[in-house]
């Protein structure tokens, strides 16, 4: 237990330093700051415009009303903004780090390799996506006259944390494959597309292949479960299953990374 607290303290200190360094980098490259803000605004508005257009000629999809679908769009921006802000840049560099043998340097450092691979870069500009998501969600909830109590809000925040954990673990599981296939530098691009699965109700995937459904199941719940919480429609069983799924996926993804490292042969391999 003492070792655990010591490690937590150590990693908190390192992460605080990373937060500061990344903030300094954000201010140093101002053109990139402006450019990234524009790009993230475009994608945040795309998610909302997409749902508005998709629901313009139909009032219900699998029993979900237009407003409920718009909540999913707002929620998608909120949850993915956290994931993109804290982890996506690290995942983007995964294949080049492995392909060019830079993982050697990471493995020799006295810090966990998974932590260094995924948590080193923080992209603050994704905050704009968070602002869009929160603003839009608040607007839709207001029009639906949904009252969010502090307890519901607390539950929602907890579920958002586990949602991010599920997305992180799913990406980690897939990106770890680059140890065996380092040239697949566009695997992260594929995952960005696959993320889209989460912004639609789970019910739409019921007709899809069972294997595909099992594989993509984690992503189909990451937005829907917190959305149900904010609409006060979530069941206790759903929450327990959701948290268990998050923890299990995290453990599996971590073990898979450690297993995959045995096959890493560096740039010369």
């Amino acid at each position, binding site marked *: 237990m003492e070792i655990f607290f010591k490690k937590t303290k150590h990693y908190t200190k390192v992460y605080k330093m990373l937060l500061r360094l990344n903030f300094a980098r954000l201010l140093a490259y101002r*053109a*990139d700051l*402006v*450019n*990234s803000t*524009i*790009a993230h605004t*475009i*994608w945040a508005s*795309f998610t909302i*415009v*997409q749902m508005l*257009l*998709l629901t*313009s*000629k*139909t*009032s*219900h*999809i*699998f029993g979900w009303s237009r407003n409920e679908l718009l909540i999913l769009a707002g929620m998608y921006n909120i949850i993915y903004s956290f994931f993109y802000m804290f982890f996506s840049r690290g995942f983007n560099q995964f294949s080049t780090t492995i392909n060019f043998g830079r993982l050697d340097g990471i493995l020799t450092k006295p810090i966990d390799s998974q932590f260094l691979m995924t948590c080193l870069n923080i992209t603050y500009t994704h905050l704009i996506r968070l602002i869009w998501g929160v603003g839009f969600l608040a607007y839709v909830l207001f029009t639906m006259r949904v009252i969010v109590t502090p307890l519901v809000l607390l539950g929602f925040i907890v579920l958002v944390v586990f949602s991010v954990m599920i997305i992180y673990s799913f990406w980690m599981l897939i990106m770890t494959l680059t140890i065996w*296939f380092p*040239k*697949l*530098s*566009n*695997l992260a*691009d*594929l995952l960005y*597309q*696959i993320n*889209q*699965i989460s912004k*639609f*109700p789970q*019910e*739409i*995937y019921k*007709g*899809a292949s069972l294997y595909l459904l099992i594989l993509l199941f984690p992503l189909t719940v990451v937005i829907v479960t917190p959305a149900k919480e904010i609409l006060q429609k979530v069941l206790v069983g759903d929450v327990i299953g959701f948290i268990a799924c998050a923890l299990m996926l995290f453990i599996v993804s971590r073990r898979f990374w450690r297993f995959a490292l045995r096959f890493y042969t560096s740039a010369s391999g």
Partner: protein
Amino acid sequence: MRNLKIILLQFQEVIEDRSRIFVWFLLGIITPLIMILFWRGASHIPGWTSNEITSYYLLAIIINAIIMCHQEEHVGTIDIQEGGLSSYLLKPFSYFWLIFFNELAYRLLQGILGILLLVVFVGFFPGLFAFAKSPDVLFLSVIIAIVAFLLTFIFKMIIGILAFWLTETRGAFEATNVMIVIFSGLLMPLAFLPSWLEQIVSKMPFAYMIYFPVIAFEGKLTVLELWQVLFMEFFWLGICLLIYKKLWQEGIKQYTAVGQ
């Protein structure tokens, strides 16, 4: 002969990249597949049956794989911003045609994957696809698809060479991608848009990249409408060509590269 050698070289280069090409292909099929599942839960859409919607998206996957060019990032970032263009300018061969043949190789390879997917779907679900049956319509649809490819190529070249003036191009590229996804018919058939928006979008060049080629192959257009589509495609192609030539002439004067 020289052109053929260059085309073959480009093919060789592209085939080396086949695993990545497969991932790019997968990337293009995700949105249409989600959309097929999405519309299954929708209440009745006037003028479209469930099978027609599925057929639309599956054809959109193939048309997108064959027609939609993606060279803008390479042109803008690697060639113009990082200076790769310098080596091409010294060669006795047009940069434009080199990029064109490279993109053609990518499109043909992705098109083969798309056609394989089509064969699999037609084999498993023969009643699902609505194809044009008349040879006239099919012939005009092929011409429309070829002109659509030329249109997307020139359009993406214009976006790419904006890098002559922009120090950061990501915003422009992302904005273009979003507009293409929404207005080209990849997200949904334009007929599903609110009618005022459909009227505007059907006059824009994006609609001629995916939407009109797809509904042409589906047999949803009469011969007269097909000619109208072709006319509009040539109109936008002409405009884009003029813009490209003007921008290239001005941009090349802006271009500087340094080395040791």
